[in-house]
């Protein structure tokens, strides 16, 4: 600690150069923060504790093919299944086609399988009682300024009502929220009564889009999944059952290999950064050779000189990195506040900071290594005589 002020003064010996370098580091870590937030959002989808005990059953043909509702009783009877529910994709939009919604028709027990959706008991009861009742996520409600008791018209894009109208009216009877900040994106759904859907839709009634099962013992998930699929083996509606995590991961990976894209950009950014700060450190050490020689003369060991230079470059990275990540954190929360939590960006949290700090230290060491070795190896007698 006592060396900190020495390192600090050396670092800012050439203020302009150091500041410019720090600005470059800030830019790099700002990008790191933003991109890591995007990557995290995609990597985090479906990863939650409650999800570990849930299975999803879809048609083996594809997700868009529906399953008969008759499966419900038979799945319920599978040993190890403690609860079953199902859902139908509805989609649709509010007011304009650009306001596409995530809406699903669900039976009344749906929310007992999703304890992460926090909903007052009274509101859940009205969902049971009001046929056209709908439960919406808090973020979605905020986005369109919906309140309890509002009647909202939703334009169907797939399922017109009997009689051909595309307009479905819903009564908002409940607003749920999700506590885990990483799962805020799940506050963007609208759920409405499956019975209403079944009775009013022109087609697609009498089917379930997919089933969701809760298993009593997550360890038995594989066995239970196989037992569920065995029910409809060799029928015309064969099923595929997998854990919710696996299901979502496979689904997200169909959009794009986000990891690869983000990884390539970060690679380019940090390669550039290493070269840039490496050059600064090399310059700084080159012009400081006599000073380092003095430190050695006074009695600083080779190792202390090595550590001093390394500490300096790590400090350089740490200052820029911390500022950059802080800006990224502010920017991300700004973007999320403005565009709503449905945009795929996670808040810059502890995890991101840990990764960032690890990167700062690693890059600082890499960048400082060569100059530090040069400082360590210098011969006092040569350096002092200007050789």
């Amino acid at each position: 600690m006592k060396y900190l002020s020495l390192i600090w003064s050396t670092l800012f010996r050439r203020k302009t150069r150091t500041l410019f370098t720090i600005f470059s580091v800030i830019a790099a870590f700002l990008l790191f923060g933003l991109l890591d937030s995007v990557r995290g959002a995609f990597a985090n989808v479906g990863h939650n504790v409650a999800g570990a005990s849930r299975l999803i059953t879809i048609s083996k043909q594809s997700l868009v093919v529906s399953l008969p509702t008759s499966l419900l009783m038979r799945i319920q009877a599978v040993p190890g299944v403690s609860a079953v529910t199902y859902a139908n994709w509805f989609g649709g939009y509010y007011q304009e086609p650009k306001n596409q919604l995530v809406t699903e028709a669900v039976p009344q027990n749906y929310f007992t399988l999703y304890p992460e959706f926090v909903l007052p008991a009274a509101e859940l009861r009205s969902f049971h009682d009001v046929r056209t009742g709908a439960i919406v996520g808090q973020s979605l409600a905020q986005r369109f300024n919906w309140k309890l008791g509002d009647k909202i018209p939703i334009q169907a894009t797939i399922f017109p009502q009997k009689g051909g109208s595309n307009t479905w009216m819903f009564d908002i009877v409940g607003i749920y929220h999700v506590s885990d900040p990483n799962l805020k994106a799940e506050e963007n759904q609208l759920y409405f009564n499956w019975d209403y859907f079944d009775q009013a839709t022109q087609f697609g009634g009498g089917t379930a889009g997919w089933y969701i099962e809760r298993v009593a013992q997550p360890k038995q998930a594989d066995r239970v999944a196989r037992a569920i699929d065995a029910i409809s083996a060799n029928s015309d509606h064969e099923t595929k059952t997998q854990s919710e995590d696996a299901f979502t991961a496979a689904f997200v990976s169909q959009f794009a290999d986000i990891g690869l894209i983000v990884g390539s950009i970060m690679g380019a950014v940090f390669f550039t950064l290493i070269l840039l700060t490496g050059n600064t450190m090399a310059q700084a050490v080159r012009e400081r050779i006599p000073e380092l020689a003095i430190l050695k003369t006074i009695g600083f060991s080779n190792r202390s000189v090595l550590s001093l230079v390394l500490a300096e470059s790590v400090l350089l990275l740490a200052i820029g990195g911390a500022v950059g990540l802080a800006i990224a954190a502010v920017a991300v929360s700004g973007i999320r506040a403005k565009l709503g939590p449905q945009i795929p960006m996670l808040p810059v949290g502890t995890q991101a900071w840990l990764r960032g700090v690890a990167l700062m230290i690693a890059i600082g060491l890499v960048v400082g290594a060569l100059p530090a070795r040069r400082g360590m190896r210098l011969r006092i007698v040569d350096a002092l005589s200007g050789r």
Partner: protein
Amino acid sequence: MLMKVLGWLPWILTAAVLLACANGQVRSVAQVGISTLRQRLGAASVVVVGIAGVVGVLVALLAMAQGFQATLQETGSNDTAIVLRSGSQTEINSALDHAATVVIGDEPQVQHDAQGRPIASPELVVVASLPKKGSSTDANVEVRGIGQDAWALRTRVRMVSGRRFTPGLRELIVGARAAKEFEHTELGSKIDLGGQPWTVVGVFDSGDEHDSELWGDADVVASAYRRGDGRNSVTVRLKSPQQLDAFKAALASDPRFKVDASTTLDYYSRQSDLLTRTIRILGTTVAIIMAIGAIFGALNTMYAAVASRTREIATLRAMGFRGGPVVVSVLIETLLLAIAGGVIGAVIAWALFDHYTASTLGANFSQVVFEFRVTPALLAGGLKWALAIGLVGGLFPALRAARMPVTDGLREL
């Protein structure tokens, strides 16, 4: 207008700086600077690599957007129209009953073929889940059930191997890009659709979105998926692009159904909009932030360069050279480094990513396979960014060089 002028600025300023080389004074000062560049290679490479990074990332991301947009837009055209159930944004969400599919073809705006039959293709779209090559997970692939008229509407489609499917049989032809992405798509392989085995009999290439699809006979697909005689969409050839409004009006006035028509160009452009715009915004944002970093790197290098040339510049000034040539010579040096960086970045992006294949989940809930396209316009755009960074990064050090008092510089002797 303002943006347009700003867009040209890097070219204009660069041209101006290079033109200044016609001046003898400028040329001789610049030559001295550039001849010492070799000794400052390490520092100079910071400018080059920094700018190469910016240009590389920018060009690669824009090439992705360009490739996706082009793939979808080229699928559509102005003289074909697609009819979907009113309110549906995509084929998979649309449904038309048999009566509607017949009536749509009978509208007077629809072109007729040599035999006098309307060119109208009622088509079925279903999604199948197939294993992707090189991965253990399944991905969605679009299966399109077509009739005879589909061939007349998609004139770009060529068979690259095998033959077309035989109507009435469970045979499939596979788009060239789908064939690259999915397992079991070789000629003669069996694919399970709707619980029944289908045989792959051909591979077709259209260079557009259809390349990501599997095609089979509409009636056979419908029976496999128990879809009856209803269809998802009808695509027609219009007598001329101007007929669209009349066609829409004719459909709207028919009380038997509620449908919407748009040109296929419109339809497919709409599908590319969101992703294309997202990638462009992402690419530009990333490039701007990287450019800021690169500018500071360039400033550092060029300030150091000016500092190391203090004596030389002061001597030149003492001999009677004016400040202008000194400014220009520093700018030229930076621009040369910037151009080198821009070219390297562009070449790397081109070599790595031109025709790089990627896929995403398209509007029909299935994989759209597309290739990155590194176009000359994108390369020129990248170079423009390089020049802009070079100009900004070189200007301030250049001004310092020019303002340096002669006596201070000479004292360092």
